[in-house]
């Protein structure tokens, strides 16, 4: 990826309001963002495109965030995954890190908080 290319972000959350609020903020910050509220559709998109960063909720209907994280890292190991969750436990944190998560952010979060983590993930992705 060249430095003038936009960093691509996949956002998956079954709460439409999260996608609705986060997408414009990420785009304003200069990211190329695609949003999904259904994990099945997000998974299908992963077969077509490798994203630089994936942001996923943990607790969702259908495929949950942990399974999505596993699939992302299996298909595209270089993709940095950020988990957002309102139900953090030591067990889910441990599993996420063992599966290669970049970081996790507690819900509800301020836009500035998630943007800061995305920025760090972007820096790591560009340096790798």
């Amino acid at each position: 990826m060249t430095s003038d290319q936009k960093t691509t972000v996949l956002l998956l959350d079954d709460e439409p309001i999260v996608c609705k609020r986060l997408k414009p903020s990420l785009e304003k910050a200069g990211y190329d963002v695609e949003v999904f509220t259904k994990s099945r559709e997000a998974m299908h998109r992963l077969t077509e495109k490798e994203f630089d960063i994936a942001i996923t909720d943990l607790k969702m209907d259908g495929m949950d965030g942990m399974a999505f994280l596993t699939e992302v890292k299996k298909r595209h190991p270089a993709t940095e995954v950020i988990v957002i969750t309102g139900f953090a436990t030591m067990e889910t944190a441990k599993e996420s890190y063992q599966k290669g998560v970049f970081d996790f952010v507690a819900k509800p979060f301020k836009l500035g908080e998630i943007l800061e983590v995305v920025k760090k993930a972007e820096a790591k992705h560009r340096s790798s």
Partner: protein
Amino acid sequence: MHDIIRFIHEKAVKELIHLGDTRIGGSDAASRRLKFNIPLGLVVIDIGGGVRVRTASAKDISPEDITSVPMKAFLEGLTAPGMWSTAPMSVDFGSFMSSLTRTYSDSTTHFSGRNLAVLSAEYLDLNLRLGYHFNIIDAYIAEKQNDNYAYFRFLGGVTDVTRRSRRARFIGEVLERFNFRVEIRGDLVVGRIKKLDPAAMYEKEKMLGCLVAYTRQLDVQMHSDENIADHITDFFKGAYNHDIGSENNSITSG
């Protein structure tokens, strides 16, 4: 005012710790020692339903005797794999000198090795001094969600203020990932959370147990700001890594 409150607190803790030693014909609230594989030197005072008493005269209890919900959660975290390091920790000369110049009141020194937990079925007030730092946890976990809360306070350390502050920032970062409202001033960290359902509160309290265990000697290893992120990863992986920031060690310390 702060000094007066602190003095009253110290005296109250002293009185509570010696309750079991000084009162003849003690009641169920008498102090008992918690015996298990982590040397906390913890005296437990049950104020109602927090401990299953096998015999009224028993002076020692085990973790299995604890019925207090927040205390059970705390101990579960404290004893989680990869959190409490038993390996000797070494410190550099600067930290060694720093520890020599740190002063504590006589009463604090006197209580070295005697920590206190006041608990009931739903409540825990824990005062822990581990080496050169202090942990305070005050928590209530019951069915009524709006009554539930956890308060965590961490202060101190053996090293210079820079490394103690890095440990404080590490603690703050972990607490924030678990939705705690966090305040940090130097090496002092205060975290608060409230009004969650019992299952969620239990998880927060368990995390605090992990945090108390993991951070016990962590300031010694905080040689640079980068070490904070490294330890966040290792903390959540449940894998204490002694190699992070291990340069410049020369004098062995506890």
